[in-house]
Each structure stands twice: as C-alpha cells, then as structure tokens.
C-alpha cells in the first residue's frame, strides 16, 4: 500500500460524495438552459438531500430488513468503488479490489440490493421497477465487462490502475479502433446503467415509462436521500471511469500536493464536461420504448465484442 494510494483513497471518496450532487445539479441546469428554462441552480440536489435527511425515517408496513438495508448497501458499495478506482491517483489503496471484475461486481451488488428492496415492498410499482431494472442490468453487465476487457487485453492485466497508467505511457492507443469501439460501447452502457435518456428518464414519474424511479417509490426521508446520493455517486463513478480509461491525462502519478491538486482539478473538469455533454445530448433525443432497449444494448454489446476482436485482429 503506497502513500499515493492512501492519499487517493481518502481524497477520491470525499470528492465523489461532495461533487456528485453538484454534477447532477449541473446536468439539470444545462438541460434547463437548453430548454429555455431558468433552472433551479447547481446546488439544488444538495438542498434536496438536506431537506430529506432532516425528515423522519418511515418504512412501509410489512417490509423487512432487506428494504431498510438496501440504501446502505447501495451507498457502501459505491463508496468502496470510489475509494479503489483510479480517479485522482493511479495507485489504489486496496489494489486487489481495483480489478475490473471486482468493481463491476460491486456496482452490480448495489443495484441488486435496491431491486430486492423494490420487490420487498410488495407493491406493483416496486416489482415492475425491479423487474425492468434487472432486465437492463442483465444486458448491461456483460457489455461493461467486455468493453473494459478490450482495453485490458493490451495491458495484460484487469487491474484498472494498470490500464490507466499504460494508456498514460502510450497516448497513441487512444485513437486505435479498439479504444474507439470500446468507448462507444461504454458510453451506451453508462447511459443505460445510470438511467438516463434514452433508456430511462430520471425526471419522470409516469408509470408506463419509469424504471429506476418506480423501484425507489416507497423510500422516504433519509433512506431516499441515501438512494439519491448513491445514484448521483454512481453517475460520477461511471463518468469518471469513462474519462480516465480513455483520457487519463492529469491523473496524479506521484504523491506531491501539486500533482494531487492537478489530479483533482482534471477529474472535476473531465467529469463536468462529460456530464454537460450527456445532458446536452439528452435534450435532442426522445426516450426509447422499453422493448427497443434490448436492441440498443445488443448493439453496444456487439461493439464491445468487436473491440475485443479488433484487439486481436489488428494487434
């Protein structure tokens, strides 16, 4: 465990927790401006969270511990990912966990916990949301694994830190077909996984269309605050992962204050720009019919597979 890894392990979760609601606020603000509205301001998600955290904890009658623990599991798994994945520093505090499979499994564990909580309430909406979320998750996970795997083939390791540092040393890799195909696949998957348009609309409560919102409908007060915070954190984690896998420049490789400061700034700028682009893109597309979503995800899976194939063909 190196000094850089430990510092990164402390800085990253603080940055992600503090910054992710601001990222959500920024994305809502970008959308609002593009749609000709004034918008609620970048700090609004934090104000919402503060309001929710002050409320009383209520659980629906008949729910079990599964319902109560789900938000905690979701936040905890996302926090672990925020600690280990190379966002600010290339080295990780818990190196064995900074592995492709471990990280994807941790993220999936959080999503499954939330889906179980949705089923636990026994309401129609909870079950419907959970079933839809699982359908999407089952299609997303293989693509996520295969897309990052395409990048790890050249490095010979599934350690995310190793992938990031090897891209740092060999910038020409970024414009290879392998990277481009994997990047497109990963973007589609991240959009689906974080529940953005065109797969899910995070700002709707219409029963025909909602996926994520239907699942967390029964959560209230501090539990809801945790779920919202965790969703925001997952969005930041995925965007940060995307940014650092394909454009890792600026990330700290040594434990000096200046390098760390540049690392933090680079991450904030990269994730902010990606979030802004995602929000701007959402204005121009309509939500896909739920039955068309598998088609989109099959396409992204094919692109990810082509990326892996290309890393063998065009070596």
């Amino acid at each position: 465990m190196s000094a850089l890894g430990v510092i990164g392990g402390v800085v990253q979760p603080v940055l992600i927790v503090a910054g992710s609601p601001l990222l959500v606020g920024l994305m809502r603000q970008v959308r609002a401006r593009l749609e000709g509205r004034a918008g609620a301001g970048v700090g609004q998600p934090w104000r919402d969270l503060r309001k929710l955290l002050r409320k009383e904890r209520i659980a629906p009658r008949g729910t079990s511990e599964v319902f109560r623990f789900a938000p905690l599991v979701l936040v905890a798994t996302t926090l672990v990912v925020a600690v280990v994945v190379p966002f600010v520093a290339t080295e990780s505090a818990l190196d064995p966990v900074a592995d492709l499979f471990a990280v994807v499994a941790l993220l999936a564990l959080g999503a499954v916990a939330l889906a179980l909580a949705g089923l636990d309430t026994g309401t129609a909406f909870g079950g419907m949301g959970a079933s839809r979320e699982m359908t999407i998750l089952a299609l997303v996970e293989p693509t996520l694994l295969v897309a990052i795997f395409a990048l790890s083939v050249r490095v010979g390791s599934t350690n995310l830190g190793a992938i990031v540092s090897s891209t740092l040393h060999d910038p020409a890799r970024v414009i290879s077909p392998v990277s481009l195909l994997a990047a497109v696949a990963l973007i589609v998957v991240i959009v689906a996984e974080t529940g953005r348009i065109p797969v899910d609309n995070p700002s709707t409560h219409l029963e025909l269309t909602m996926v994520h919102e239907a699942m967390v409908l029964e959560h209230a007060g501090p539990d809801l605050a945790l779920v919202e915070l965790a969703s925001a954190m997952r969005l930041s984690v995925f965007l940060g992962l995307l940014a650092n896998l394909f454009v890792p420049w600026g990330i700290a490789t040594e434990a000096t204050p200046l390098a760390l400061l540049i690392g933090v700034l680079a991450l904030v700028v990269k994730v902010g720009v990606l979030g802004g682009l995602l929000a701007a893109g959402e204005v121009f597309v309509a939500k896909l019919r739920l039955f068309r979503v598998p088609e989109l995800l099959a396409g992204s899976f094919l692109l990810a597979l082509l990326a892996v194939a290309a890393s063998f063909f065009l070596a």
Partner: protein
Amino acid sequence: MYVQLLDLACGALLLTAVLVLWRRELTVIIRMFALQGAALAVLVGVLAAQENSAELWAVAVGVFALRAVVLPYLLRRALAGAGESRRETRPLVNVSASLLAAAVLTLLAYAVSQPLVELAPSAATQAIPVGITVVLIGFFVLVTRRRALSQLVGFLLMDNGITAVGFLATTGVGLVVELGVSLDVLLAVLVLQVLTTRMRETFGDTDLDELRELRD
C-alpha cells in the same frame, strides 16, 4: 503512423457495416454506406502512401468517387422515388438477433482467415478478418432484409468487403481489374435501380417477399 491509420480505416469499415445492420431508416443506411465507401478510399489511400504508387492513388480516388459519391447518389435517387416506405420495418431476423449474429460472424471471419494471415503476417494482412467480416455482414443483410433497397445495400456491402480483402491481401489487383469490377458494380446498381422502380410500379411496394405469390 501507417499502421494506426490503416487500423482506423479498418475500424471505420467495421463500424459502418454494423450500423447498416443496426439502423432501420433507409436514409441513414445509405449515409452509412457512403461513409463506408469513404473509409475504403482512405484504406486504399493509406496503402498507396505506403507503397508510394501513383496507380494506387488513382484507384483510391476512383473508389472514393464511385463508392462514396456515385452509388449513394443513385441509391438516394431510388429512395426518393419510393414514397412512403422509408424504413426497413420488419426484417426476417429482428435487429437484436441480427446484431448478435454479426458478433458470431465476426468470430467466424477471424477463425477462417487465420491461415490466410499466417501466409505473410504484416499490418495489412492482419486486417483481412475485418474485410471478411464486412463480406459476411453484407451477405447477412442481403438474405434477411425485405426491402429491395436494403438488399441492394447488402450486396454493395459485400462488394466493399471483397474489395477491402483484395487490397489488404495483395496491395491492389491492378488498375484494369479494379476498373472492371467497379463498372460491374455500377452496372448492377443501375439495373437493380430500374428493377425496383418497375417493381413499385407493378406492385406498389418493394417488399420482395410479395414476389413469391402469383398474381393476375
């Protein structure tokens, strides 16, 4: 630099072939086909720069003119006459399944082209599986789509793939041969364009499955 440009051109070939399979709107399919033509021209251009041969440069320009400009223009004109049927509404194999089939075809292309690559391993020959994948995807489009126009694009996709394999394997098959093949393709498209127009005039549709039934 040469290897990277070559790989990028091959990546673009593959991506456009997949997008043809993925999208339903015929206008988008034609645009993807035009982009693929441009990628093929870039591929030939990169090979020409590497070989430093004026003949290959001429072929590159010819490929661009034919496959990125003339053929898409002809297809677009055929589409403009088509009226309302602008979408490939119900392919024989649905889109998700055909995308997964394309994944299998890619692996198949990789497997069957290994002996070819091993004959003379170089950056160009290593990209042969990409060309074969495009051929297979084109064939898949040809057999699973119903609209005459998308079947035509499938046929042209196959031809693009064959041309790409030819250039990657032998660095050009000679100007005369290339010219002959190109004229052949152009002629096929012109004939098929006339045929689609006649079909629509007779049946009011270009769904080829309708042709199986006998009519008065």
